[in-house]
């Protein structure tokens, strides 16, 4: 092996990729050039295994202002308002150092949103760990929650919702995804472009150090093995204070129209923040690395170009505006240096200490990145899994099953986590964490913005198409529950090793499922993220696509439904097609430790009808409205009872309906005498009155047995499940 071979391989490049670099340059790359190609062509930055499939997503709609390809998607909310949204993962960094991994994940997704010109107004975290009886998982969970809180609270953006789930498959590979929503006036929209020849590139924010060299990009692109300890020194540290100042400074720059384009520095740092904006503008750039402000001495050009130091932004500015930009930076006490000049032509030239260290076609770093159409094949184990069903002909003790489900950390209250997050800042959180969808008011308008984020690795493991398709419908139903109409989706595709055909198959099936549902609903996918190589010692996680769906309610309901608003004397109604679907359910997981069978597919027309009905119910002041998901009807009812501090008594025709996780089902607390049946009939949705709220017990009757438990016992199981496991 030649020395150069050793270098490119150590940087994670294949021999074929190295040859492509030689083809592009017509010569052997210099060290700094090789460093740039290696980070830009990593899986994390180049999407080389996924790019050819992401085009499948429907991404167009009249209200889409910016679709996939920029730092965040942007949609038009009307009346001059735009929303920017994006979701990102920080799975591998969070395993290496949970606090900083999660914290820098929050910092990164915020930058993607305020890079577009928007003020970030809310965050949602979707976090998945192995079971809490293992100390390492408790440490990771605690560290990740503290990291999200530590960064999100201090940077001053509320975390208003999310998901917490636990499963064996995440034990050595936790998933930490964060979604961010921002808003802006239309004229504030900024793109990641370098502008025209003569524009200057200003690097704003923290000094550059050796943080994360080969961190996010290399870490997120390679699996864990016993040597992951060796990758440790590259951990990045987040500084929410600096980020807060950057946000305010950038928003002031946009408001005053002082920049022509902006690009955040994330994975691949300066390599990305110079080449991508230049490529988007069809320009080149001359960059002077000596002008970069540094935290450590003795950094090489390659290190400066690869560094993933946090809280940095690149602004492109016309020369006449530079002094104004520097004055804004100085007011907010952030560093700002001119580090480059945009040039005609397409060449990115980088100089350091009197030497030309890189001279490459700017677009080659992003657009010429390799693309792999990796083989995909249905896993051999899939059909045997489908055949592996449980026999539920005999009814268990329904009361103890319900208590066990309520005590399961994936189902139980996540208050332990979300009460560590500031979820009230900005005074917009009308429906906050602990409900189905979050609802934020947009002050000064009658618009409400609703978001739901949903993932379900078990369903997607058993059937990635059906599972992913159902996620979109579930998210849409969740936003409908607070009165909103779906508008846009962002997705985070958390998968195993794409070099395995069965993982690639799961990946493609999930994309098909998400696309099918989005097409049916008429909702575009405006952005997302792919996280591959979520495997440890050759074992992949369950395929875990996470969907974040933005909806808008206009006008926002005066009193949107809440889980804690049911009251004694109200009726319990169920809307939607009752069906028994226990494959992949919480009942089979918690009670039987089983994962088999084939979950039901979505019924698109019914989904649309139930979603429309939910919106109508929300608009007319329904007290409580809750979609049926993990743990089925019984858990959904218990959640309303616990949160509303009222008992209930209902009956069902078959005990299995109480725990079935069939899609498109809604539970409602309605005033007695309200003619829900006609409303539902008009919407084409089956409806049944199951019973009434009242008393201090949760009573669920079926022909095969009765669940009759004290509300207080249910509440104790539900609220103390996570805290008890952490004590």
């Amino acid at each position, binding site marked *: 092996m030649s020395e150069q071979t050793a270098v490119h391989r150590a940087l994670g490049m294949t021999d074929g990729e190295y040859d492509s670099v030689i083809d592009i340059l017509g010569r052997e790359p210099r060290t700094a050039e090789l460093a740039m190609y290696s980070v830009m062509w990593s899986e994390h930055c180049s999407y080389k295994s996924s790019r050819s499939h992401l085009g499948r997503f429907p991404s167009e709609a009249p209200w889409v202002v910016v679709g996939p390809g920029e730092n965040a998607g942007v949609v038009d909310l009307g009346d001059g308002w735009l929303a920017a949204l994006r979701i990102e993962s920080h799975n591998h960094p969070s395993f290496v*150092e949970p606090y900083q991994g999660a914290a820098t994940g929050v910092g990164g997704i915020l930058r993607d949103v305020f890079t577009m010109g928007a003020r970030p107004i809310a965050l949602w975290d979707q976090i998945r760990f192995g079971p809490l009886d293992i100390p390492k998982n408790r440490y990771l969970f605690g560290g990740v929650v503290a990291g999200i809180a530590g960064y999100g609270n201090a940077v001053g953006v509320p975390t208003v919702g999310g998901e917490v789930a636990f499963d064996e498959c995440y034990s050595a590979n936790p998933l930490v995804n964060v979604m961010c929503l921002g808003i802006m006036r239309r004229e504030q929209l900024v793109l990641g472009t370098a502008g025209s020849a003569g524009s200057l590139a200003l690097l704003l924010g*923290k000094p550059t*150090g050796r943080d994360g060299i080969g961190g996010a990009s290399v870490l997120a692109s390679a699996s864990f093995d016993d040597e992951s300890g060796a990758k440790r020194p590259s*951990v990045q*540290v987040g500084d929410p*204070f600096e980020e807060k100042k950057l946000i305010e400074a950038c928003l002031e720059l946009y408001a005053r129209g002082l920049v022509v384009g902006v690009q955040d520095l994330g994975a691949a740092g300066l390599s990305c923040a110079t080449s991508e904006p230049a490529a988007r503008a069809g320009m080149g750039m001359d960059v002077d690395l000596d002008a970069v402000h540094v*935290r*450590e001495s003795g950094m090489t050009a390659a290190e400066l170009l690869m560094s993933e130091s946090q809280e940095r932004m690149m602004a492109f500015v016309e020369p006449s505006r530079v002094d104004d930009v520097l004055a804004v930076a100085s007011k907010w006490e952030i560093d700002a240096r001119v580090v480059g000049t945009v040039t005609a032509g397409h060449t990115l030239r980088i100089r350091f200490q009197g030497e030309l260290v890189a001279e490459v076609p700017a677009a080659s770093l992003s657009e010429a990145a390799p693309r792999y159409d990796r083989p995909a094949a249905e896993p051999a184990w899939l059909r045997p899994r489908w055949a592996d069903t449980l026999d539920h002909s005999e009814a268990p003790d329904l009361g103890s099953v319900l208590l066990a489900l309520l005590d399961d950390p994936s189902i139980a209250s996540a208050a332990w986590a979300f009460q560590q997050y500031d979820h009230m800042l900005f005074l917009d959180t009308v429906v906050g964490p602990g409900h189905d969808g979050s609802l934020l008011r947009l002050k000064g308008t009658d618009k409400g913005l609703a978001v739901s984020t949903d993932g379900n690795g078990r369903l997607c493991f058993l059937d990635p198409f059906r599972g992913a398709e159902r996620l979109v419908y579930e998210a849409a139903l969740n936003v409908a529950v607070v009165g909103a109409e779906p508008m846009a989706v962002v997705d985070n595709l958390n998968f195993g090793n794409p070099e395995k055909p069965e993982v690639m198959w799961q990946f493609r099936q999930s994309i098909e499922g998400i696309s099918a549902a989005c097409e049916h609903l008429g909702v575009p996918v405006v952005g997302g993220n792919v996280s591959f190589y979520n495997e440890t010692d050759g074992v992949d996680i369950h395929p875990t696509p996470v969907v974040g769906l933005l909806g808008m309610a206009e006008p926002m309901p005066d009193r949107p439904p809440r889980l804690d608003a049911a009251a004694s004397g109200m009726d319990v109604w169920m809307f939607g097609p009752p069906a028994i679907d226990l494959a992949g359910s919480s009942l089979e997981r918690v009670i039987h430790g089983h994962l088999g069978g084939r979950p039901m597919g979505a019924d698109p027309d019914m989904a649309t009808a139930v979603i429309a009905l939910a919106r109508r119910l929300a608009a007319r002041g329904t007290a409580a409205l809750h979609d049926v998901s993990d743990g089925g009807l019984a858990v959904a009812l218990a959640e309303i009872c616990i949160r509303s501090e009222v008992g209930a008594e209902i009956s069902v025709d078959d005990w299995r309906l109480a725990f079935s996780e069939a899609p498109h089902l809604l539970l409602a607390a309605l005033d007695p005498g309200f003619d829900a049946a006609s409303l539902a009939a008009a919407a084409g949705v089956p409806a049944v009155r199951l019973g009434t709220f009242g008393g201090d017990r949760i009573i669920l009757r079926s022909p095969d047995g009765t669940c009759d438990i004290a509300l207080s016992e249910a509440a104790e199981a539900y609220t103390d499940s996570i805290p008890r496991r952490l004590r």
Partner: protein
Amino acid sequence: MNVTVTIRRRAVIADPHGATVARALADLGHSGVRSLRIDRTIHLEIDGEEPETVRQQVAAMCDQLLANPVLEDYEITVHA
């Protein structure tokens, strides 16, 4: 036995708080501060006779809990 553990963030790892404090000192007119680093020092009083055993016990505490192995180094002093 009395033991002192000094926990120090590795030099290559960013230290945002230290940087902010250094800037604040300069703002207050304390010029001449070239560098500033904030460490944690943990003083333990611990049962045991054998310095080497105690040191090993404290090293285990550091690895498990007191120090963050990803970000920090530690140094143990067992006092006579």
